[in-house]
C-alpha cells in the first residue's frame, strides 16, 4: 500500500473504533453496566487460581479484569472498541500479502464479534481468545522454518487451550493457511494439518477427565457465553471469519475492488446490528440501572417520554413514583397492567428479582430484599458472583445486625477496584455499629422495618404484610402507598376503602379520590354521605367519564380523555 492508502486504511480502523465506541456508549450503555454487575472480579491469589483452573481460565480472568471497568459505561465502550479494533488489526496482520482492497476484509471477524457482543450474555472472553490466538499466530509466522514452526504450534495448542479455551484452534488454522499461501512445502503442511486436527479433537476429550464440564462445553468454550448450554454461534462465526478473510483476500488483490470489499464488511454490520441489538432489553437495563442509582426523576422522565409496558419497567416507574411521593396522584398517568407491575412475583433468574428486591428494600422488607438479591446472585448462569448484589447483601446484613456476614461481603468488595472505597467505609460501620444509625438510609430502614410481628412472607398476602408494616410504623408512608396501589391494581375496592381509612394525611390524593368516588358509585344509590374530601372537579369528571362510558365510546377516545384516571384502568385494563 502507498502512503495515501495506508492513511485511508488507518482512517477505516479509526472510524470503526469510533462507531463501536459510540454504539456502546450512546446507544447501548446499560448493556455495558449489565455486564459489570454480573461478576465480582477480585484482585487476589485465590480468585486468580479459581479462574485459571478451568480451560480458557486466563481469558476469563482477563475478561473479568476488563469488564470491571464497565462500571463506567464510557470506559466499557472504550475497551470494547479497542478489543474490536485489535481483532481487526491482528486479522489484517495475518492476511498474507494484504493490499488496499483486502484491508476492509480484515473487519469481518470484528463485525461478527461486534454482533456477538450485542448479546448481553456474550462474554468478552471470546474476543480476548481471538486476540490472543491472532497474536500468537502472527508471532509464530515470524518463524521461517516450517518444521520448527509446526512443532511449536502443535506444542502450544494445549497451552493455548488451557489459557484461552477452544477458540485457540484458530492458531493452527491460521498457521496452516498462511503456510499454504506462502507456498511452503505441501507435505509439511499436510502433516501439520493432520496433527492439528488430531490435537484439536484430543484436547477437549483429555480435558474432560480433569474438568467438570460436559464435552460440548469443553469443545465450544466454557467462558464465552454466560449460559453454559448455549453454543456461542456468533463468536464462532467471528472465528470462522478469520480464515474466510484470509482466503477471500486472494480474490481482492486489485485496488479498484476496495469498494466491493468495503461493502462486504459494512453491509453485514449495517443490516444485522438492528437484528442483534436488543433495544428493548437496553430499555429494561436502563430502568434497572436508574433504580440502582436512585435516579427517580430520570426514570419518570424516561417513562413520560416512552410509556413503559414491561412489568420490570412499570415496576421501576412505580418505585420512582413512590420515592418522589407521586404515586397517589400520578400512578395512572403511566401504563399499568395489574399488581405484577407493582411487585412482581419471584422468578428463578438472575435479573428480574433485582429490581423487585430493590422495591422490598425501599419498603423496609429487608429479609425479603435479601432473599431476592441472594437468589438473583445465585442465579447467574455462569456461577459468578455479582459485585452489585454482594454490595446489596452487605447492606441488608448490616441493617439486620448480621455484622460478621456483612463483613464477609465487604471483605470481598475490598478486593475490587470500584467498590473498595465503599467497602472500607462500610467496614468502619461494622466495627462501630453505633455509627450505622447516623447513616440516614440505614437508620430509616431500621426504623420502618417490622419489629414486633413475625410472619412468613407470602405474595398472596401482600396487602396484609404492607398493612402491618404501616400499622407498626406510620412513618412508612411508602408501605401505605404500595398497599393502596396494590388494592387499586387488583381492583379490590372494598379492601382499598378499608385501608384508605387508615390514612391520616394525603388521603385526598387524586387517584384516591377517583377510587373512592368509583367505589361510592358502585355501592350507593346517590352521592349523599360521600366523604367530604372529594373535590367538585373530581366528582364532575367522574360524571363525565360515566356518561361517556355508558354512551359506548370507543376505548381509544376514552383513553385520550381519561387515560390518566383510575376509572380508565378499572374499566379497560387488567381484565
Amino acid at each position: 500500500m502507498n502512503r495515501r492508502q495506508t492513511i485511508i486504511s488507518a482512517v477505516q480502523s479509526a472510524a470503526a473504533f469510533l462507531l463501536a465506541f459510540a454504539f456502546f456508549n450512546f446507544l447501548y450503555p446499560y448493556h455495558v453496566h449489565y455486564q459489570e454487575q454480573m461478576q465480582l472480579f477480585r484482585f487476589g491469589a485465590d480468585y486468580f487460581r479459581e479462574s485459571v483452573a478451568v480451560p480458557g481460565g486466563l481469558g476469563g480472568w482477563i475478561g473479568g479484569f476488563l469488564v470491571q471497568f464497565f462500571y463506567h459505561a464510557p470506559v466499557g465502550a472504550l475497551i470494547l472498541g479497542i478489543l474490536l479494533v485489535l481483532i481487526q488489526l491482528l486479522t489484517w496482520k495475518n492476511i498474507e500479502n494484504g493490499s488496499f482492497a483486502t484491508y476492509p476484509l480484515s473487519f469481518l471477524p470484528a463485525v461478527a464479534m461486534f454482533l456477538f457482543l450485542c448479546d448481553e450474555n456474550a462474554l468478552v472472553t471470546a474476543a480476548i481468545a481471538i486476540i490472543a490466538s491472532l497474536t500468537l499466530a502472527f508471532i509464530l509466522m515470524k518463524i521461517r522454518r516450517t518444521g520448527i514452526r509446526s512443532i511449536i504450534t502443535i506444542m502450544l495448542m494445549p497451552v493455548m487451550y488451557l489459557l484461552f479455551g477452544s477458540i485457540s484452534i484458530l492458531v493452527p488454522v491460521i498457521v496452516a493457511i498462511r503456510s499454504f499461501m506462502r507456498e511452503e512445502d505441501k507435505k509439511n503442511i499436510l502433516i501439520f494439518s493432520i496433527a492439528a486436527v488430531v490435537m484439536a479433537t484430543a484436547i477437549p476429550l483429555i480435558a474432560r477427565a480433569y474438568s467438570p464440564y460436559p464435552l460440548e462445553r469443553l469443545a465450544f468454550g466454557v467462558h464465552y457465553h454466560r449460559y453454559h448450554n448455549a453454543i456461542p454461534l456468533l463468536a464462532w462465526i467471528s472465528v470462522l471469519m478469520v480464515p474466510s478473510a484470509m482466503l477471500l483476500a486472494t480474490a481482492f488483490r486489485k485496488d479498484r475492488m476496495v469498494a466491493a470489499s468495503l461493502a462486504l464488511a459494512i453491509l453485514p454490520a449495517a443490516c444485522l446490528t438492528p437484528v442483534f441489538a436488543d433495544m428493548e432489553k437496553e430499555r429494561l437495563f436502563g430502568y434497572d440501572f436508574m433504580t440502582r442509582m436512585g435516579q427517580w426523576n430520570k426514570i419518570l422522565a424516561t417513562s413520560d417520554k416512552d410509556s413503559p409496558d414491561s412489568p420490570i419497567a412499570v415496576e421501576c416507574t412505580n418505585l420512582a413514583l413512590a420515592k418522589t411521593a407521586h404515586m397517589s396522584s400520578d400512578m395512572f398517568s403511566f401504563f399499568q397492567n395489574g399488581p405484577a407491575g407493582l411487585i412482581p412475583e419471584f422468578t428463578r433468574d438472575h435479573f428480574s428479582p433485582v429490581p423487585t428486591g430493590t422495591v422490598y428494600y425501599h419498603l423496609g422488607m429487608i429479609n425479603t430484599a435479601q432473599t431476592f438479591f441472594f437468589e438473583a446472585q445465585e442465579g447467574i448462569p455462569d456461577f459468578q458472583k455479582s459485585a452489585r448484589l454482594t454490595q446489596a447483601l452487605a447492606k441488608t446484613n448490616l441493617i439486620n445486625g448480621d455484622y460478621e456476614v456483612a463483613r464477609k461481603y465487604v471483605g470481598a468488595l475490598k478486593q475490587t477496584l470500584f467498590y473498595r472505597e465503599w467497602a472500607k467505609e462500610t467496614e468502619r460501620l461494622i466495627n462501630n455499629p453505633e455509627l450505622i444509625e447516623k447513616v440516614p438510609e440505614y437508620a430509616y430502614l431500621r426504623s420502618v422495618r417490622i419489629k414486633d410481628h413475625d410472619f412468613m412472607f407470602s405474595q398472596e398476602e401482600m396487602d396484609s404484610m404492607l398493612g402491618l408494616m404501616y400499622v407498626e410504623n406510620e412513618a412508612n408512608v411508602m408501605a401505605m402507598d404500595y398497599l393502596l396501589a396494590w388494592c387499586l391494581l387488583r381492583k379490590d375496592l372494598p379492601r382499598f376503602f378499608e385501608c384508605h381509612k387508615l390514612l391520616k394525611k394525603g388521603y385526598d390524593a387524586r387517584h384516591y379520590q377517583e377510587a373512592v368516588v368509583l367505589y361510592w358509585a358502585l355501592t350507593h344509590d346517590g352521592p349523599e354521605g360521600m366523604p367530604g374530601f372529594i373535590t367538585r372537579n373530581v366528582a364532575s369528571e367522574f360524571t363525565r367519564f360515566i356518561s361517556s362510558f355508558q354512551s359506548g365510546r370507543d376505548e381509544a377516545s376514552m383513553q385520550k380523555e381519561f387515560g390518566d384516571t383510575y376509572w380508565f384502568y378499572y374499566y379497560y385494563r387488567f381484565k
Partner: protein
Amino acid sequence: MMKRVLYILLGILMFSSCYRFDPSEARYTDGPIWPDYMDVTVPVGIAPLNFCYTADCGPVPVTTFSHGDMSISIKGREVVWKEKEWKRLLEAAKGEDITVRSSVLPDTWTIHVSEDEIDYGINYRLLAPGYEVYSKMGIYERNLSNYKEKALIENTQFDGCVNCHAYNRGNPDNYSLHIRGSHGATLLNIDGEMAAYNTKTDSTLGFCVYPYWHPGGDYIAYSSNNTRQGFHVLADKLIEVFDLDSDMLVYDIRNNCLISSESIKKKDVWETFPAFSADGKTLYFCAASPKPIPAEVDQIRYNLCSVDFDPATGTIGSRIDTLVFAEGTGKSVSFPKPSYDGKFLVYTLSDYGNFSIWHHEADLWIMDLETGESRPMDKINSHDTESYHSWSSNSRWMMFSSRRDDGLYTRLFFTHIDENGQESKPFMLPQKHPLHYYSYQNRSYNVPEFVTGPVDLDRTDAEKMINCEERIQFGFRMSE
C-alpha cells in the same frame, strides 16, 4: 513501548496473584488466635493446625510448640507449619500433650494428641447458603492429613443440584447420592458398581432422601419428604424449611424394593431422618404430629423414636418407642446419629421443626443408649447453630457443622468422644491459611460424612448417567 505494556500487565498479574496475610480480613472472635486451637484434642494424622493471631499490631509473635526434647518455634502473626515438622511432632506426642507458648500471650496452652485414629478423609457438599436457586455446588472430598480437596461431582456437568449423599460407615465403595432437578436421579454405588435409580414410586410421597446405610450393607433407610420453605420478616430469623408430609422407608438393595409398614406410614405422623442402630436391628427416626402450615410452623416438634427392624426378612416392627419426648419440653429433635460402637446417639435439638441449620438455638445432645439419658454437649455447643454431625468409623471422633463464626456460613468442627461419651473441645477443619480461606469461602459445608478411603467416583460416567434418561425404577412393598 510493547515491553512497557508487557511489564505493566505482568505487574498486575503478580499483584493480583500474590497471597498476603491480612489480619483484618475477618474478625470472628475476641480470642487471641483464630481458629481457636487452644486446649483441643487432635488425631495423630490430622493436617497442620495453622492459625493466626487476631491482634494486627504490637510485636510479632513467636509461637513455640514443645513436647519432651522437641521444640519448634514459628515467628509471625500467621502460624504456618511445615507439614513434615508437624507430623513429626504429632507422632512424638501421641497420647500426650504438646505445650504451646506464645511470646505475646501470658498463658500457655496445650494440644492433646489422641491415640485414636481418625478416618482418611471427609466428603461434604459445598453450596451457598441460599434458598431456591443454586449456583455452583458439588460434592467434594477432603483428605484430613493434608489440605487437598477434590471435586467428586459438580453441577457444572449437568442441570441440577447434588444433594444427599451417604456412605456405609465411611466405606467409599458403597454410597447413595441424590441429584435433584430436571435430571433427578439417585446414584447408587454398590461394591464399586454404579447405577442411576428413580426412587419415586406410586406408593411413596416423592424421591428418597436422607439416606442411612444398614451396617450389613443390604438396606438403606430413606425418608421421602414434601419439603417447603418460608421466609420470616424479623431481623433475627431468615428462613424456615419445613415438611408438609414425610414418610420413612427402607430400601432392600438386593431385591430393588422399598419397604414400608403400617407402623411408619401413618397419615397423622411425619417420620423423617432414619438411622440404623449399630447392630442393624433398630431404626431410629424423628416423628412429629402434623400442624397447620405456616400458621403453626413453630409448634411442630419432632420426638426421637425407634422401631425394630429384622435384617434377615426385611421386616419393620409394629411398635414405635419414643426415646426422647422433646415435644414435652418444647423442643424438637433432628438428625439422630448412633455411634457405630452402639454406645451413644447424638442428635440436634432446636425449638421447633426439623431443619435445624436455620435455627440459631440448635445444639447437639448426646444420649447414652444403655441408660437412655441425654445431655447437651456443652463443650462443643456455641451461641449459634450446631446441626449436622457424623461419626468416624471407629466412633471416637465426631464431625459437626456449626455457624458459630458468622451466623450464616456453615463450617466443620471435630471433637474427640471418649469411651464414656465425653466430648473434647472441638477444632475447626484445618486450612493452610484459615483466616484467608474462610473469609473468602462463599459456600457452606453441608452434610459432612467421614470416608475411610478415597471415593472412586468416575465423574464422566456419573455425568453420562445423570444426563441420560434411563433410570432403574425402585419397587415397593409393605412389610409383613
